[in-house]
């Protein structure tokens, strides 16, 4: 039961300090889940995030649910999912009841702009760490570069990109993996 509570608190903290989409939670997950609690490895987090991105629903919720399930089954999944959504529930309800004027204060806007700069630095740092555990050869470099350009410059749909990467991975690496297994 203690571990289930720990899951809730950890993901509550992650939800409270995630400013932006699912990508913004990655530096926090690396710190909390990989380094401090050792619930998953760097590569497992990347794999779970990849699944979260390619399945229906919100990436942040999918990733939290998966990590909770991996740790403590269905109860763990419920705890981590509740943890990640509870800060939003509280904060948004407070704001919707009439605190929305707070967001119009200049000081709050300046602080949020500062936070966005920190998010860029933190996520870039997370991307570099992920690069180290995900890009292993020149094919990986090409997949990375093509994906980045396709999404940023040409607005390719994410689902298409993900599907291509899966097919490519199977086509290129399947034989190698099978040889390793023998």
């Amino acid at each position, binding site marked *: 039961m203690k571990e289930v509570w720990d899951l809730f608190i950890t993901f509550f903290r992650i939800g409270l300090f995630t400013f932006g989409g699912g990508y913004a939670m990655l530096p926090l997950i690396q710190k909390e889940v990989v380094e401090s609690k050792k619930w998953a490895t760097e590569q497992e987090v990347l794999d779970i995030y990849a699944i979260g*991105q390619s399945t229906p629903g*919100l990436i942040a919720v999918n990733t939290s649910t998966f990590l909770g399930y991996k740790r403590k089954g269905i109860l763990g999944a419920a705890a981590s999912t509740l943890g990640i959504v509870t800060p939003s529930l509280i904060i948004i309800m407070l704001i919707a009841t009439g605190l929305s004027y707070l967001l119009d204060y200049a000081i709050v806007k300046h602080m949020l*702009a*500062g936070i966005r*700069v920190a998010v860029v630095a933190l*996520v870039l740092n997370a991307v570099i760490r992920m690069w180290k555990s995900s890009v292993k050869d020149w094919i990986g470099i090409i997949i990375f570069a093509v994906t980045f350009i396709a999404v940023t410059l040409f607005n390719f749909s994410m689902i298409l990109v993900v599907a291509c990467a*899966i097919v490519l991975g199977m086509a290129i690496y399947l034989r190698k993996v099978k040889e390793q297994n023998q």
Partner: protein
Amino acid sequence: MIYLEVCITFFTIGLFSIGGGLATLPLLQEAVERYQWLTNQEFVDMIAISQSTPGPIGINMATYVGFNTGGILGALLATFSIILPSFIIIIIIAHFFMKFNEQPLVRSAFMGLRPAVTALIAAACFEVVKVSLVHIEQYVETQELLQLFDIKAIVLFLVLFITMNKIRKHPIVYIIIAAVIGGIFQF
């Protein structure tokens, strides 16, 4: 009746939107217009608030719309409805993934998927760069290269980036420091 509409709407959004919070927008907008939950201006405000407050954007939007239409119960129902489909789907996938992740087919698929997902995260990061470190609109207006760069923000970015590689403090520490600096130096 309104609670049932909220539940069905957000369950559908949770089930059919792939790719994170902003991917829910087309479905959400359609529902908001059909049931007249928010005016256009309120809808725009709702997105701005959801993006600037902490927490996943999709959850923030669900809570906000739910609260506006049905109070606290509406907020809770909207949020639980949007997470329910993914909760069920992810548990099923997690169950099988943990069984089959050593299969050669799955392993090779992930070897191709990992660099692509890393690139998708880098692309998301790049989108934030465009609104936080540079002023593209000001540059387009004035055509002066100096106007393109937000010097204050870039200095803070470099200091934070170098520091976090030397001293590996909790990300929360850097977020709070950046908020304070942003407030003091009027970012």
